[in-house]
């Protein structure tokens, strides 16, 4: 069935059942934060489902780490020859993904998918393999927080972009599951024994919750962001808005769409080693530094400008979408409370 109800109290059972055929990741506690961790299946503790924490508005780190890990070996080598190529193909389920993170995956699909230019076809086999083996069950946001602004950048607290199944927490404690893709439908079919059909009242509830959530998301002045950003490229407003930036990179690491990475070789000194990639950030001064010493973006304000321009001006042209998802993580995490909402709103405004 396209829509299914998982009654109150059966979520752990559902997560456990999915763990029979996939590694299931969901929001769990990690120290002082909530992050995606294994709750059932390979890699999870036997009582992993107990560590589920769905109360938080969003995880500290986005779901991108499941498909584009912070540290990912590309291949191993030995004595100047490639030995083994990493081939991630283990099935995985990402549960409890907020719609902003799911929509972010549609952007990353464009980045890591076939390159957009002419006959140069480059596909990232690592990301695409994980995506292919992955099923996303997103969880709509009944209570968006004050730093959320998905609706101002083309998203919605109950949006379905990038997800395979959309889940909604209903007032009666049950979970409404709606299949969005064929893959999502197949997942629901596989576990049909756990579900019942939704009543029309429950479906109405979902509509009501969704509309209320949409109204609760605070609007941000992101209209015409590209035009305003392009016009303001050389404006002094960048210095004024970003002078407190520490260049710490926290924003890019928690961001669900930031995808810059470094490639490096690590060896054990005995001829064996691994070539791997790891997250990098355009906020670091070394990011663009040439071997000659020339640095195209030597100042912090230029690097922060690059981040904002990339999300609001460049990717609308190259990928057909703003690549800020309005998840608000960068706003929450910035040690000096730099606020991308303020920056975007200020572009083009009279001083």
């Amino acid at each position, binding site marked *: 069935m396209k829509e299914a109800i998982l009654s109150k109290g059966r979520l752990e059972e559902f997560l456990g059942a999915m763990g029979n055929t996939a590694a299931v990741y969901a929001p769990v506690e990690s120290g002082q934060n909530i992050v995606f961790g294994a709750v059932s299946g390979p890699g999870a503790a036997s009582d992993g489902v107990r560590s589920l924490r769905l109360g938080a508005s969003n995880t500290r780190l986005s779901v991108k780490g499941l498909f584009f890990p912070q540290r990912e070996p*590309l*291949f191993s*080598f030995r004595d*100047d*020859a*490639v030995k083994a*190529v990493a081939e991630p193909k283990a099935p995985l389920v990402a549960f409890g993904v907020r719609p902003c993170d799911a929509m972010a995956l549609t952007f990353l699909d464009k*980045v*890591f998918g076939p*390159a957009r*230019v*002419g006959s*140069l076809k*480059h*596909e*990232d*086999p690592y990301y*695409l393999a994980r995506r292919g083996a992955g099923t996303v069950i997103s969880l709509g946001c009944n209570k968006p927080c004050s730093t959320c602004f998905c609706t101002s950048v083309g998203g919605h607290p109950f949006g379905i972009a990038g997800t395979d199944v959309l889940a909604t927490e209903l007032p009666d404690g049950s979970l409404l599951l709606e299949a969005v893709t064929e893959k999502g439908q197949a997942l629901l079919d596989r576990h049909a024994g756990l579900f019942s059909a939704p009543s029309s009242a429950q479906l109405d509830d979902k509509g009501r919750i969704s509309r209320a959530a949409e109204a609760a998301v605070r609007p941000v002045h992101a209209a015409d962001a590209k035009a305003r950003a392009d016009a303001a*490229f050389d404006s002094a407003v960048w210095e004024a808005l970003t002078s407190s930036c520490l260049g710490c990179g926290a924003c890019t690491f928690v961001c669900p769409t930031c*995808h*810059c*990475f*470094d*490639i*490096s*070789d690590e*060896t054990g000194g005995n*001829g064996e*080693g691994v*070539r791997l*990639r790891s997250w*990098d950030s*355009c906020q670091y001064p070394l*990011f*663009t*530094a*040439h*071997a*000659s010493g*020339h640095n*195209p*973006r030597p100042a912090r304000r*230029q690097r922060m400008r*690059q981040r904002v*321009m*990339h999300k609001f*001006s*460049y990717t609308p*042209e*190259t990928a057909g979408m703003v690549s800020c998802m309005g998840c608000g993580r960068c706003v929450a995490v910035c040690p000096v409370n730099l606020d991308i909402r303020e920056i975007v709103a200020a572009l083009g405004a009279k001083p």
Partner: protein
Amino acid sequence: MTNPYLPIPVTIEEVTVENDLGDIKTFRLGFDRPEDAEGFQYLPGQFAELSVLGTGESPIGIASSPTEKGHLLFSVKRMGLVTSELHASAPGRKMGVRGPMGHPFPWDRLEGKNVLIVSGGFAFTTLRSAITYMMHDGNRRRFGRITAVYGAREPGELLYKDPIRQWQASPQITFVPTIDRPKDGWTGRVGLVPNVVKELAPSADGTLALVCGPPIMIRFTIPVLLELGFSKEDIILSLENRMKCGIGKCGRCNVGTRYVCLDGPVFTYAQLEKLPPEY
């Protein structure tokens, strides 16, 4: 799907020191597998990532022409980790190549045109590829007049001294090497590249200009070309930028809406003007 991160296995066949300073060497690389040699179809202007397992990769312009079959030539300046490792390598060493990458010079537009080449210093490498390609027997008639100005600080710093001698002797190309200041034993042109171009005053009619050099050379050459009547679309430049993946995924070479590795490294001056000056 092919894995674009996997280096193609090659072996260093020959190493030649190109300049007196000794910090630029040309490596002739042979493919370990014949099918890789056949599959590596490239055009002058493209680059590749040279891979040294255990050290890293370095994006280097391809100096050989596709008409020179069976091997690749790369001229590498010793600057950092990977290039130093390469410089310390002897023939027989196994390494890797990922490529070809980027867009080449606009050969569809160059068809039937006169070609003006303006270059300085180490940036001349991909122009060796371009000139060798155009001068090849089967190709020469596709192009009109070919004029090249190539400058270096001193005679010892000019790359590809043997090909240069051949080109200077050939009626098929007007090749003008120049050095910055007079030097004993040098009977050729003396003068900075932009000035030499101004003196030669090549016609802009039906001509495309390929300009590859250090930023300062480019900065002073562009106004000379514009004054000679070249349009911004007819001035072709090759950009350098910090790169890693070379295939438009890692974001490092991102300039405005473009990736230098994917949309470039070849851009027209008209295209560059629209980009933020972050390269």
